[in-house]
């Protein structure tokens, strides 16, 4: 049982970490785009980014199955071209977690980037900085607290992902059984003490992560 718990814990951590790595670059790019640029269809993009946050995760899972399933839109071509089958694999768990974590990342990082005075970026670009250099040398150092908080919250959300993961990755012991799925399985089979163990571990971990994020948030610092 201990090894099962250990496996599940490590799998959850791995899935959440990779999901975070997957969403960091597109998430921060989206946050920057929404904070700094005006373009046609911006409101629509805003809505699409928020969608995974407001939809039931099962709906997100359903979309993923429709896209990547064996008879989905992309699934067959991925399988024939690259020999990849995503559904019911740890990769599916990563994708599901990444998509539900994205809105939290974008919506927390966006105001942090908006708060960076636009004059600083103008001065920097007049001093010859490229857009990428500008992000790393001005925006990031000026907004790092908010961006770190966004990453931490996204990680916590990825760690706790259940609905979309169950639909898309399934509950396969030894393969896709992350902690949230294990809680449900243990509870269903009447193993209340095992469920409680997972609940305590997951609650403690999330509390730690969210406390760290709260301390990092701009406005709550002791400056």
């Amino acid at each position, binding site marked *: 049982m201990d090894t099962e718990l250990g496996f599940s814990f490590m799998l959850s951590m791995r899935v959440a970490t990779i999901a975070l790595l997957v969403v960091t670059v597109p998430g921060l790019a989206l946050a920057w785009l929404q904070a700094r640029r005006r373009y046609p269809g911006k409101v629509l993009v805003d809505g699409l980014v928020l969608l995974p946050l407001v939809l039931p995760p099962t709906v997100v899972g359903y979309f993923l199955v429709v896209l990547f399933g064996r008879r989905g839109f992309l699934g067959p071509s991925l399988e024939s071209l690259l020999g990849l089958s995503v559904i019911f694999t740890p990769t599916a768990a990563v994708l599901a977690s990444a998509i539900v974590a994205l809105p939290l990342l974008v919506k927390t990082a966006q105001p942090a980037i908006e708060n960076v005075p636009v004059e600083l970026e103008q*001065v920097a670009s007049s001093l010859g900085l490229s857009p990428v250099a500008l992000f790393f040398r001005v925006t990031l150092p000026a907004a790092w607290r908010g961006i770190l908080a966004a990453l931490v919250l996204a990680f916590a959300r990825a760690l706790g992902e259940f609905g979309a993961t169950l639909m898309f990755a399934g509950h396969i012991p030894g393969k896709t059984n992350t902690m949230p799925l294990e809680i449900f399985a243990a509870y269903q089979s009447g193993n209340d003490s095992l469920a409680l163990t997972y609940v305590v571990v997951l609650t403690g971990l999330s509390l730690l992560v969210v406390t760290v994020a709260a301390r990092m948030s701009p406005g709550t610092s002791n400056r």
Partner: protein
Amino acid sequence: MTLANDTTLDARFTLTVGSPSNPFCLEAQFQLDRGLLVLFGPSGAGKSLTLAALAGHISPQEGLITLAGQPLVDTRRSIHVAARDRRIGLVPQHNSLFPFRDVRGNVTFGLPRDQRRSRNDVVESLMDELGIAHLADARPDALSGGERQRVALARALAVRPQLLLLDEPFASIDDAGRRALQDILQSILKDHGIPAVFVTHDVDEARRMGQQVVLFERGRTTRQGRPRDILGIDRKVSITGQVVEEVEASGADGGDATQTIRLSSATLTGPRDSLEANEQGQLHIQAELPLKG
């Protein structure tokens, strides 16, 4: 189109910003040969927007901007040089310093890493000239408003710009500090031979700073010329043998408020903010047109 060879900056462009229901249209046309050009006008007349177009942070819809003979913007030929390739220094009014760097880090920010050492002498002498050498290790939030703007100026000059843009740089600094900074700026620009465009809505500052003044009114440049021709003359006049008998204000505060000053053998009437008298019989007259004689 012919231009005199000594024209440094030539700008003639239009641009529209804001929402379709509430647009702001800017129509700008002016030249800078050498020295310092003042863009003068009330707030919201389009001065800062003009500066943003010169810097390359906003693109004109139509027109051209050339700097030292090279086009920065030419809408007919679809030329829009990016801000980072213009070699134009920028000193904003607010939020001018990078808060996460000390003073030296701010001044050297625009220098490529491999030049920071080789150009150390230049940086040191710039910081000396601007009187900020002793603040090299200070953080921006520990500086006064005047010190911050000195650092911002040093940072812009360290990369040897072709042109310097200053957007009301001394607006939030007290009078004495502003005078000192105006003098320092003028002597530095002269020593380094860097042309500059200076935005202000303060008529005294416009008079002190500009060799040339461009007047902005409601999104348009209406006139360009010497400060005395554009802004009129600010002159204190003593009238001997006259005693101020009565000073009478009429009209509400604002545009049409007038002031009437009765002297022993004459009466002066004019807008309240351009006519003042003190008890010694000294009159302060701001004239729209140059006074003859």
